[in-house]
């Protein structure tokens, strides 16, 4: 069901591939250069006396209408479930999204894949009163959806129904969260899917690069990089799924956001009713290993003989989103690798024509350090040259201040597009719930904006120096290492990574 688009993959070509990392990727695209108009909300851009002013720079813009940010109602039910509620009468729909405190970070190393299977089969395996197939029929007849999943550091559920079907939708959602039956046939089906994904994991070279790069940075056994194998999938039993669900799914560990066409008091009453028999429980979360990182320069190659390009990925560990330098790093990212007008896009793509896809970011995540990852995909015969060009841009970030124009463009872009953070109710309520889930203040976005406004050229250089380590970059190339423009060893001693998939036990 994921592949509707695949058949059409060759048909639609898009001008820019955005390659921002996690965390910062959520920020806007932006960037640099001389003599741009000044915006009413942002920083004045200096006018370059050499160039005549353009007509568009003379435009006077009306004041932007005040942003009416709707207030999200928050409350805690008697069983400890935290609710976020926002009325949105525009369309006759009701949506729910939920976050549950669990994740693959809690699964044992010999059962990698357990969290994912649990998240899938909770929904497909049905509940104590209905099979998964019956739920499928019931939902699809009313064009509704209820889905569940478990990711790295959270579990989740979603519901979307026409408003007249809200009772049906909520009843199914509650049953799935509280009383999943984990029928064996759907566990088997999910395992077939998991094994097939393992068999196919080296088919798309970009995925090899992302996966192997995460392993390089976090370590192959890290909870943020490790991967399921046939053996770990085979070792997972129904009892494991039942136990994993029983351990983590409790109302006092659940946040639920609801938005759509309803009256708040009525939907709150309905949710209370749907989850009234779900008892609170004390849960002790297993310790999660801290990310430890030793900065070191490495050069790594994955052989893939059917490629006519090299995929390059390089960088090192990133930071947390609550790092005091976060906002200055965000500005730095816009200038270095974000969107159409970043230094990497301009210098590697537009000026040198080396790549269609180039960019990246010093990444930040909510609860563990993100990845600093820059990437590029270029023909084999320019792979080392492109790598060197990217390395040079990283080094420059630690040596010279950015220009006034680059700073102004990056900040203006962020500040002028800030209003898009409030373009939909779903965006507003989910952001608030996510901040709450990871223990970030509700006004984190607003504070980020205020801090971005204050960032100076000196700040960008300071955080560049503090966070980027151009002498300790880890470099990964997927492709044909023997066919490059220069030996990969020009960049350092090369380690070849074997991505052969360990065979399943007979």
């Amino acid at each position, binding site marked *: *069901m*994921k*592949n*509707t688009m695949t*058949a059409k*993959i*060759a*048909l*639609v*070509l*898009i001008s*820019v591939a955005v390659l921002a990392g996690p965390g910062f990727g959520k920020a806007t695209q*932006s960037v640099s*250069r001389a003599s*741009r*108009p000044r*915006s009413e909300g942002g920083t004045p851009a200096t006018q370059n006396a050499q*160039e005549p002013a*353009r*007509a*568009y720079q003379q435009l006077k813009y009306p004041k*932007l209408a005040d942003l009416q940010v709707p207030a999200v109602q928050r409350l805690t039910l008697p069983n400890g479930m935290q609710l976020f509620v926002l009325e949105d009468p*525009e369309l*006759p*729909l009701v949506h729910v999204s939920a976050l549950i405190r669990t994740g693959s970070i809690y699964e044992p190393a010999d059962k990698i894949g357990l969290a994912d299977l649990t998240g899938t089969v909770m929904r497909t395996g049905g509940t104590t009163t209905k099979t998964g*197939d019956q739920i499928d029929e019931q939902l*699809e*007849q*009313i064009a*509704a959806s209820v889905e569940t999943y478990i990711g790295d550091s959270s579990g989740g559920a979603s519901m979307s129904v026409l*408003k*007249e079907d809200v009772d049906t939708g909520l009843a199914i959602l509650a049953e799935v969260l509280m009383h999943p039956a984990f029928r064996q046939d759907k566990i*088997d*089906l999910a395992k077939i*899917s998991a*094994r097939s*994904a*393992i068999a*196919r994991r*080296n*088919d798309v*070279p970009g995925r090899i690069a992302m996966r192997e790069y995460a392993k390089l940075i976090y370590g192959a056994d890290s909870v943020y990089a490790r991967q399921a194998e046939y053996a770990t999938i085979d070792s997972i039993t129904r009892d494991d799924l039942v136990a994993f669900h029983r351990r983590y799914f409790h109302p006092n560990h659940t946040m639920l956001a609801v938005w759509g*066409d309803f009256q708040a008091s009525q939907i709150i009453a309905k949710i209370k009713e749907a989850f009234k028999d779900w008892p609170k429980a004390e849960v002790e979360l297993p310790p999660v290993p801290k990310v430890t990182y030793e900065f070191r320069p490495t050069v790594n190659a994955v052989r893939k003989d*059917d490629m006519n*390009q090299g995929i390059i990925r390089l960088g090192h560990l990133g930071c947390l989103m609550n790092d005091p330098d976060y906002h200055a790093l965000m500005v730095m990212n816009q200038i270095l690798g974000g969107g*159409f*007008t970043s230094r990497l896009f*301009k210098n590697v793509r*537009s000026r040198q*024509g*080396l790549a269609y*896809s180039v960019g990246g970011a010093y990444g930040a995540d909510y609860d563990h350090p993100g990845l600093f990852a820059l990437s590029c*995909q270029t023909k084999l015969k320019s792979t080392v040259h492109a790598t060197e060009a990217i390395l040079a841009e990283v080094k420059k970030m630690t040596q010279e201040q950015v220009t006034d124009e680059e700073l102004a*463009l990056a900040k203006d*872009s962020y500040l*002028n597009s800030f*209003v*898009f953070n409030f373009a*939909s109710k779903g965006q507003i309520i989910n952001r608030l719930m996510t901040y709450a889930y990871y223990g970030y203040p509700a006004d984190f976005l607003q504070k980020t904006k205020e801090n971005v406004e204050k960032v100076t050229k000196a700040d960008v250089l300071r955080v560049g120096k503090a966070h980027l380590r151009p002498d300790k970059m880890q470099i990964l190339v997927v492709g044909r290492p023997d066919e490059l423009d220069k030996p990969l060893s020009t960049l350092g001693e090369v380690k070849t990574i074997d*991505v052969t998939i360990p065979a399943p036990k007979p």
Partner: protein
Amino acid sequence: MEHAVVRRRGAAVVLLALLAIAPAALSQDLAEFEKRLMKFTLDNGLTFLVLERHEAPVVSFHTYADVGAVDEVKGITGMAHIFEHMAFKGTQTIGTKDYQAEAAVMARMDDLFLALKQEKRKGDLTDPEKLKKLQEQFDQAGQEAQKYIVHDEYEEALTQQGARGFNAYTSEDATQYIVGLPSNKLELWMMLEGDRFAHPVLREFYKEKDVIMEERRMMENQPTGRLYEEFQGIAYLAHPYGEGVIGHMSDLQTLTKPEAEAFFKAHYSPSNLTIAIVGDVDPAEVKRLAQKYFAGIPSGPKPEPVETEEPAQRGERRVTIEDAAQPVVLIGYHQPNVNHADYPALEVISQIVGVGRTSRLYKDLVKDKKIAVSANARADSSKYPSLFVFFAVPAKGHTNQECEQAVHTQIEKLKTEPVAPEELTKAKTRSRASLIRQLDSNSGLAAELTFYEVVTGDWRNLFQQLDKINQVTAADVQRVAQTYFTTKNRTVGCIETAAGASR
């Protein structure tokens, strides 16, 4: 060609009545919509669709150029897409310090590129010294041109003012330019977009072709990209849908800037452009500014449509590529275009057979037989007759042949037995709900409005398509399946894992 999938997002407006499943409700939604939508056409033929949606102080712009890869001819494949890239390079006033001087250098580059091409064509007789000299002169002219360029000015002008989703895409049927801005920047967009299609300058043309060749290589490095190019190539004997959007490598290498300029002149007259503006705007102000910034673009004739018709197929076609990747199978049947009377039934078939966990393919191939991890089917809402495609990804240890056989069995069932009333109702309900869910974003709705206006002739078909889907009967489904899903109308494409493929 991309909408049937991408177009399931969409945007806008209070549509409470849409909920009611009674068909009568539809006309109310449309009426509600018509109150908020203003359509006008400038004297030069450029059509605007303006929809007010005041949820947030933002606005989405969607410029739909009715030109795509289908409008190319042999030798210039990839041209529509190249032009799309060039439309970010500025105009006679944006992106340059001295347009006259720059134009002179660019003309010299065009001449040198032609001379280079001629010398290279000589093959064994090519004079390496002459080639080297020409290349040096070409590179030198390129460097000289750089002196006049104000790099990336077009992108930056919009980016600095808060642009979101600034991009463009090219399909077989269309080239589309999109951006969102805070709503007080309406005039900036008007000025820049008007200039973009009035006075485009294809600067750094030859450099950008290098970027596009890398884009082609990216497609070649994806297993499904490799497969689709082969599949598409054998499915059509005559119609240009058989050529991919990206273009052949040799065409990309040899295409010239004058050829791109001629393509622009032929296909970008105002009569071939339709623009949707959705968001927090005042339609009267939009009209005033549209007049100010777009009315001066000289009118030109609407280009002729593609007249080549794909002849009836005489027998099944099949391509198998041996590859390092795991198996995948595509099964295509020639189908009529989106405006054909049989199209709604094809949409219903794709819902019943290919979408969701209760679809026939998912139930049979994935849940019951467990031979596939994914199986779907979809009709193509294209401008010219194209392909209805079934797609299956075999489960580990299972084969394309098993999947293909199971798909054929399901197709036979469609041809021999009427679909159940519940399946038909479900398909119709889901089409309706899918429309409602498309109405929640400015950018999605802008895309929908331009598609229906240009390809079906009236934006109202965004709603009226549901009337047609509602009228589809079990007998229609059976008849349409019998008409199109025949052996000789079939094209099959597979990836088979090569023995000893390097993993």
